[in-house]
């Protein structure tokens, strides 16, 4: 049951509709934005306030098997940040990897109303959907890890392109996912099968399957293109975190040609230097390429100082990071599908590499010429918690604050960057783009990220405040699907949110072949693998841009 609401006197930032700070009246009915409501049940006076669409997180890790392992791993982190319940809301635990309820409420508390879990093993899809159902307020979806899928690699090796296409369609349908995710494509087999080694070059042939990371990436781009997925393959490039990985990142983008591709947490892939040596900044090379190629979207994966948790399907990377402190570490292999590594981490101002990573992220933001395609993220919780977004926004909007922060960090690292010379300050309209309109467009969510008639009534109302961190930390009102959730800074209702997924058509003739593979190499029955609709609850199928083939 949603209300009719009218919001008056607020300064509206709705970049998708070319509205930048104009006083407009907004109307909500039946969960949608409408042109008028005759007698609104509730009128909110937003005098002196800033109104934006609800935030959209294009890349975060909030639900599923690896997230839950990371939760279980860190009682010490929850202990210092309890999340009390209210009469309307459940209690939970905070910290860098909050419990599901705390995750939903805390996103809402920042004015975010949609978040996409960025890496789920297909066999863990059912688990992820159960957790997302317990993640309140926000709409959500997840990307399915297929870049190291053994069956799919076998099809590629045998050149069975047509079957590959349909098998990807089958896998997305069987998991109710939103798009494909590739993580360190081709790197799992050497990790699991060759004593914890890895691939290091886009054109290095896998010993077992005889295909290269580039062939895998290219094949997934083809499939997404042919289907017209709302969001293209979401790629975590090879060589994440390694000095000199800029070459791999540029080559990955070139592999796409002029077809759509999303690069995840691109900051972690923008390093110059030689492997094994200290990295330098290659932000200029990366952002120049992104600026010049409108087919590319990326999220930054900004590093924020303080506690984080590394959680990634890139198991060799996590093992490398584990080597620094040799503290607690998780490796979790998923049969035929993926690897995974998890460890607690912290970024420190005085450490050269951490300060460099922080500065490169800011360089990318500040040198971006198209905010629609360079999207705000911290790769939560890898670069830092989503709860640090307000501080990141302040770093982008407030040059003076940025200078003070630069002064606190490793000087040698800053010296390798052009960050001190970048005077740019983001304005509210650009912030609305990199946190709302841009990610919604990159995801192909036409009803999100804007406030035009017909859009989902996901609205955030912030008190105008020169301290942008404070401002973006505590919206006065949050409306989700037309329901007032936060009223005068306090939760006044709970809401379950929807699951967003796609449903590409596929040729049923692929199924017997997948079944045969399952019967040989999986440990669960094929007929028990696909996730049924009962796990979706409230959901929305996002249409493809091309008709079914």
């Amino acid at each position, binding site marked *: 049951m949603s209300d009719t609401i009218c919001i008056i006197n607020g300064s509206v930032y709705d970049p998708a509709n070319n509205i930048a700070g104009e006083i407009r009246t907004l109307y909500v009915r039946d969960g949608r934005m409408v042109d008028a409501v005759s007698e609104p049940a509730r009128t909110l006076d937003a005098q002196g306030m800033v109104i934006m669409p609800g935030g959209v997180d294009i890349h975060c890790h909030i639900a599923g098997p690896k*997230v839950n392992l990371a939760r279980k791993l860190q*009682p010490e982190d929850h202990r210092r940040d309890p999340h009390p*319940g*209210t009469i309307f809301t459940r209690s939970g635990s905070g910290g860098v990897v909050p419990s599901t309820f705390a995750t939903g409420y805390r996103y809402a508390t920042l004015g975010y109303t949609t978040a996409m879990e960025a890496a789920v093993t297909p066999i863990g899809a059912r*688990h992820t959907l*159960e957790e997302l159902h317990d993640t309140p307020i926000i709409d959500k979806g997840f990307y399915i890890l297929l870049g190291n899928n053994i069956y799919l690699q076998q099809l590629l090796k045998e050149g069975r392109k047509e079957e590959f296409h349909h098998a990807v369609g089958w896998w997305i349908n069987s998991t109710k996912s939103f798009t494909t995710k590739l993580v360190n494509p081709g790197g799992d087999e050497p990790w699991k099968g060759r004593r914890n080694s890895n691939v290091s070059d886009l054109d290095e042939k896998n010993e077992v399957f005889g295909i290269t990371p580039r062939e895998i990436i290219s094949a997934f781009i083809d499939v997404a293109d042919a289907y017209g997925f709302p969001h293209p393959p979401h790629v975590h490039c090879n060589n994440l975190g390694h000095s000199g990985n800029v070459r791999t990142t540029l080559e990955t983008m070139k592999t796409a040609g002029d077809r759509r591709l999303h690069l995840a947490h691109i900051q972690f892939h923008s390093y110059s230097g030689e492997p094994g040596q200290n990295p330098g900044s290659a932000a200029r090379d990366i952002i120049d390429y992104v600026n010049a190629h409108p087919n590319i979207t990326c999220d930054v994966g900004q590093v924020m100082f303080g506690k984080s948790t590394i959680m990634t399907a890139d198991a060799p990377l996590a093992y490398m990071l584990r080597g620094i402190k040799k503290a607690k570490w*998780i490796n979790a292999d998923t049969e*035929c599908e993926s690897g995974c590594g998890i460890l607690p981490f912290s970024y420190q101002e005085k450490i050269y590499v951490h300060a460099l990573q922080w500065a490169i992220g800011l360089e990318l933001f500040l040198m971006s010429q198209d905010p629609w395609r360079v999207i705000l993220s911290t790769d939560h919780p890898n670069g830092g918690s989503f709860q640090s977004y307000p501080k990141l926004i302040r770093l982008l909007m407030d040059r003076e604050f940025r200078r003070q922060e630069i002064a606190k960090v490793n000087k040698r690292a800053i010296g390798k960057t052009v960050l001190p010379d970048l005077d740019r300050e983001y304005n509210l309209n650009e912030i609305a783009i990199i946190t709302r309109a841009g990610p919604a467009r990159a995801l192909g969510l036409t009803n999100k990220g804007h406030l035009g008639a017909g859009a989902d009534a996901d609205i955030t109302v912030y008190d105008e405040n020169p301290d942008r961190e404070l401002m973006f930390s505590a919206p006065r009102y949050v409306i989700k699907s037309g329901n007032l959730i936060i009223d005068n800074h306090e939760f006044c209702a709970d809401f379950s949110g929807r699951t967003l997924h796609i449903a590409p058509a596929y040729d049923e003739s692929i199924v017997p072949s997948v079944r045969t593979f399952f019967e040989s190499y999986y440990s669960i029955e094929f007929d028990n693998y696909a996730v049924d609709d009962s796990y979706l609850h409230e959901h929305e199928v996002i249409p493809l841009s091309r008709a079914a083939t």
Partner: protein
Amino acid sequence: MSNNLRVVENATCTFCGCVCDDMILTVDDTEKRIVKAKNACVLGRAWFAEHTIEDAPAAMISGKPASVDDAVAEAARILVEARFPIIYGLSDTTCEAQRQAVAITDMVRGNIDTTTSVCHGPSGLAFQGIGESTMTLGEVKNRADLVVYWGGNPAESHPRHFTRYTVTPKGMFMPNGKKDRTVVLVDVRRTPSAPVANIFVQLKPGKDFELLWALRARVKGREIKADIEEITGVSLAVIDDLVQRMKTCRYGVLFFGMGLTMTRGRHFNSGALLALATDLNEFTHFVAKPVRGHGNVTGADNVVSWQTGYPFGVNFSRGYPRFNPGEFTTVDTLSRGDADAAMIIASDPASNFPKAAIAHLRRIPVITLDTKPTLTSSLARVAFRTSTYGINTGGTVYRMDDVPITLRKAFDSPFPDDETILRALKEKVQELLRSRMPRGAKSAFELPLSA
């Protein structure tokens, strides 16, 4: 057997943590029972055969038959009026029911704990300290050329573990099944699992930690004292042979059971084993996995973790979850006499808890949900008879390796399932709490702790 037979394929056995999902059940719809369970092991066959429908009331209050509605109302009253209600069990029910149980605990600011605290709880603690290199069971089938079992006897406790997942199956890189693998069993006695092993290592009782630490030292190339054999019962030669095998295998796995976790040393033992697996990754790919017992104890760990941040032993008395094993684990809340009401879901602590804990359970109002009468239900104020998961009800369970599986119902039961009862109870609790709220109260924080 009647002629009214029906076959359910790909059904799942929830008896143990193997959660085998390849059952072919023949159901007699007239007699309301499973007459054949193809692919099931000896334990699974008994599980399916014994869960017939008995003529019994769905609910009892103080030993007398009652309507489910009255029982729900009485249970809600008990939970809301208690100052320290505890909820325990959960490992033999669905995740859907577990989610409702945590919700109720959150509302009444109670204490929730699962049977993990009396089985692999120490492994959970070790995990928090060390982490874990681990895998799904299919990886073992496809890749593991060295399989080590430590302190467990799967031949009797998890009869299909060897044949379905770890020893005999042929896998992608293990085309000859058992011939491609070396199987090692480490235990204090020669169990029925020993014949499966290529190498049996018998160690002295209570010396697991010492042997594990010696292995860690040798893996790292350190010298150890010659008296290691005297201490552990295992010679240096055997230790070195094992170390050599572990360092040179392609994909090694260490499975461990309660022989490790519930003997002297507990989480130190589990921790030493997890650390050994971690260390071995400097040389090759190595993983470890506790062999979990109950059908959905892994689901309970997962659900309690995602809802609260902690896997078991969680207390909500301050309005948010706190974790303290030893304080908020059920043996302790009972033995100390803290709990003033208990809801036991799909578990029978009265049959296996320490004497002091059972004595306290007899003193306080108890609510039970179980498929059969148990010692615990016999002392309950409110006892619900519920349908059996995986036989009469669907839902989700997690295998010991965190792989979630959807259950298929074989036949209907006249008894409601756990989730249905707990949902009704949650709504009743919510209603009572609302009615008890002082006028103008804004948050659950301002609720009185008791009536």
